[in-house]
């Protein structure tokens, strides 16, 4: 009688590393390498527990001076807070408009040719890797101080992320409906409208709302480089050592970020 074969097995048998000198050396080298990288980075960043301990009284001192929050400045914060929301709304909206053509060009299955595919992928990568603060510095220099450069900065940075996600989800759609619509004799734009967009829309809407949350958070610091919003108040009170004002501003930011997150998840739940 044949012995029954085992019906389960490990995908990869474990190697007892101590049983082979070669494997052991490999493991030890890997551990040494990781430790090396950590020590090297610690040196580069002056990481030190002693310094932290020495700085502790200062931190406690600043925290003490931050309290109690100075509520009397609240009326002065209303206008910058509204401006911050406005910056995030237009920054996100402009990005969405720019994303639609980029998404189609940067998806392998909708891009008209390799050149446009590669160049739009490159542009998306570039705008994604440059932080919004750097864009804000550039646009403040170009169009002057105020909320408008903030809007442009958010729009440019957001296009990179939104475009890449849109292109990736276009590449991952079910090809069947596309083939079916082509077979009816529908034109390219009709195929995009009826077979591709309905498939990517739900994910894209979710993503845009998420991007709006991120953009609101970014908009709270854009003022630090002069691009409008509540960040300008924050940097001013820090420079004037008015830590009690700063606490109030931080509380307002915290409340507003929570509020925007709530609104965004409410919209998401409503439309999906």
């Amino acid at each position, binding site marked *: 009688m044949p012995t029954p074969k085992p019906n389960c097995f490990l995908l990869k048998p474990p190697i007892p590393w101590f049983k082979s000198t070669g494997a052991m050396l490999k493991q030890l080298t890997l551990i040494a390498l990781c430790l090396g990288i950590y020590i090297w980075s610690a040196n580069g960043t002056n990481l030190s527990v002693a310094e932290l301990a020495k700085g502790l009284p200062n931190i406690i001192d600043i925290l003490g001076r931050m309290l109690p929050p100075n509520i009397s400045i609240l009326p002065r914060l209303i206008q910058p807070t509204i401006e911050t929301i406005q910056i995030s709304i237009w920054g996100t909206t402009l990005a969405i408009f720019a994303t639609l053509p980029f998404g189609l060009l940067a998806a392998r299955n909708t891009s008209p040719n390799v050149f446009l595919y590669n160049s739009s992928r490159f542009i998306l990568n570039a705008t994604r890797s440059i932080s919004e603060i750097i864009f804000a510095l550039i646009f403040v220099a170009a169009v002057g101080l105020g909320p408008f450069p903030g809007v442009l900065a958010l729009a440019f940075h957001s296009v990179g992320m939104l475009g890449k996600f849109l292109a990736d989800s276009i590449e991952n759609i079910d090809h*069947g*409906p596309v*083939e*079916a*619509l*082509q*077979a*009816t*004799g*529908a*034109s390219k*734009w*009709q195929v995009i*409208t*009826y*077979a591709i967009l*309905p*498939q990517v*829309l*739900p994910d894209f809407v979710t993503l845009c709302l998420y991007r709006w949350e991120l953009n609101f958070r970014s908009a709270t610091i854009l003022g630090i480089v002069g691009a409008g919003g509540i960040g300008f108040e924050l940097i001013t009170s820090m420079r004037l050592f008015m830590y009690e004002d700063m606490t109030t501003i931080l509380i307002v930011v915290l409340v507003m970020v929570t509020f925007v997150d709530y609104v965004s998840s409410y919209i998401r739940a409503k439309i999906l």
Partner: protein
Amino acid sequence: MIEISNLYKEYTGTKALKNINFAVKPGEFVVLLGPSGAGKSTLLRCINGLVKPTSGNVVVQGVQVHETLQLENVRRQVGMIFQQFNLVKRLTVLENVLCGRLAHTNVFTSCLKFFSQQDIDYALHCLQRVGLEHKAYQRADQLSGGQQQRVGIARALAQCPAIVLADEPVASLDPKSADRVLDILQSINKQDAITVVVSLHNIELATKYAERIVGIREGAIVFDQSATLLTEGDVEQIYGMAAGPENEEICYKQVSYAHA
């Protein structure tokens, strides 16, 4: 109507179609019969230009499919039905049927999702033909498989096609839905005089519905006669019953069909 001569199609490494020659006359009901992987889907897709042949000629309604600059004009006259239905799941049933009207409408207005009342009425009429007018405003993915395939037929009918190609239309359906779908295809062939070319791998269904059977094995036509002339020997030749692995695949297919 459809004339195919010296058609070859090679995918990297495999020869999918080898020297296919056949013609379909107006009003015929032709079944392409053969095991999976024999090249039936590729052949059907060569007819409406979804697949570009390596060499050979395909003429549909007097137009060379692979040389014309107005491929969309050819496709508009050729409806297609798919094994996986290929409906746009998130759109309503009616919108899916209206997709069949796209090639007859203005690109700009249809991309803004405007359709004329005439188009909507015609789409509803097509749904009535397949018995699903009461589902018009439901989302396509809420329907059962058999119903989805009937929406697929309505979409093809909305094109006002001269020819309907059906690629394994009942392979993912239970026997009852399969009969219903093939009955509808038969009725549009008889009542509307639409030429129908269906690929099937089930011999029983093929002999039940076909007027003419074209047997395909390993990319070549091995049988092309009236359905009544199909003998046991022909079936053996199409499926290669003597051969081991292929035979096994057929049995598996039919078992899964029975349990679907």
